């Protein structure tokens, strides 16, 4: 068996050598194409890439400083955020109205702050949480402006050949939320060593 493989390979090589010129040109094309069409945005380094950690850190520091300077000069413009609210994710900016479905305790007129922020962005930068942006970095305020019921929905059940038919009608409670303010208040790139303690009860 071991002796068979090189034999086979030799046979293949004879075949392949005829087309090798063609193949080489094709592979070159593919390389060129891939450089244009795809860019690897993953965190893993491509095998040919040489990673210089110092250089990388310098670059990221530069970027963070740029964002920080924008924030200190309050030149960031309109901010948007993706928040996790009652089991759903919403993309919100200032002045938005969001409807939360299902039973939700806050009552009309209450001001609440939304803490589960998955992402904050301005026109020039985006802060992405893994999975949530650090607590205290972003301040999002909202007001409950309305609590209503949805339209009547029908739930129809039928079993074939069993003389069974049911129609259930139901309404879902809805809460309208006005987003009042989104602002970045904390310090960038300076997460606390221990987090989550400020809300824990011992």
């Amino acid at each position, binding site marked *: 068996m071991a002796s068979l493989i090189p034999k086979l390979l030799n046979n293949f090589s004879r075949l392949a050598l005829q087309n090798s010129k063609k193949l080489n040109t094709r592979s070159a094309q593919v390389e060129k194409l891939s450089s*244009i069409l795809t860019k690897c945005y993953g965190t893993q380094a491509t095998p040919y890439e040489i990673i210089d950690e110092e250089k990388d850190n310098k670059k990221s520091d530069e970027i963070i400083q740029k964002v920080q300077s924008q924030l200190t000069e309050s030149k960031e413009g309109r901010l948007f955020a993706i928040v996790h609210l009652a089991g759903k994710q919403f993309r919100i900016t200032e002045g938005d109205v969001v*409807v939360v479905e299902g039973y939700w305790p806050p009552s009309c007129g209450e001001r609440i702050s939304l803490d589960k922020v998955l992402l904050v962005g301005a026109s020039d930068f985006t802060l992405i949480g893994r999975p949530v942006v650090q607590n205290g970095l972003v301040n999002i305020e909202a007001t409950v402006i309305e609590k*209503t019921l949805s339209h009547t929905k029908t739930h129809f059940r039928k079993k074939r050949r069993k003389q069974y038919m049911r129609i259930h009608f139901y309404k879902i409670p809805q809460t309208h939320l*006005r987003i009042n303010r989104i602002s970045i208040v904390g310090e960038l790139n300076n997460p606390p060593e221990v987090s989550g303690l400020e809300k824990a009860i011992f």
Partner: protein
Amino acid sequence: MSNSHLFLKPAFITTPGQNGVGRYVCQLQRVVLKFCKNNGSSRGMREFIETKLMDFVKESPEVAVYVKPRRHRTPIIKAEYLNGDTQWVNARNFTEDEILKWLKLLKSQSSDRTGIRLRKLIHTDFPSVQGPWTPYTFRDPQLNKVEFPCPELTGPFINETSATEELLELYKRQKLGNVEESRAE
């Protein structure tokens, strides 16, 4: 099966007068509780007026509450909103708790929401901050300089090496191995 929800009036979220931007304003203007003084269907309403109405009024000073007795008619709750909407709820045989629940709902609403189906559960005036996505976002700007027709870009994009290519590589490696072996000998 009822398809009545299909013919509901579809609507987007509306808020009267930018409610909640500065402060919250209760949108319920007045409520009229109509009931009969001796009919059994108004019993819950009468009990509500005797026991719980004063608490409700104290809780909500912004709402004007009227009580209107009328003979031999079913009890109803009529609500009038700041935007002019009126809505009434048939309170026949309701208990006092049910009536309180409905009153609270009417108070927390901004208009008559019956017969309206919300099309979107979010309203925004700024649909995009960083610009909407296009096929060219996050692409290499080199693509701008490509002249068409471009044979490289029109063909199928194959990144994987084919079986023949892999075999060729194996063959090459084998050859190298042979050379090393011969050197060792």
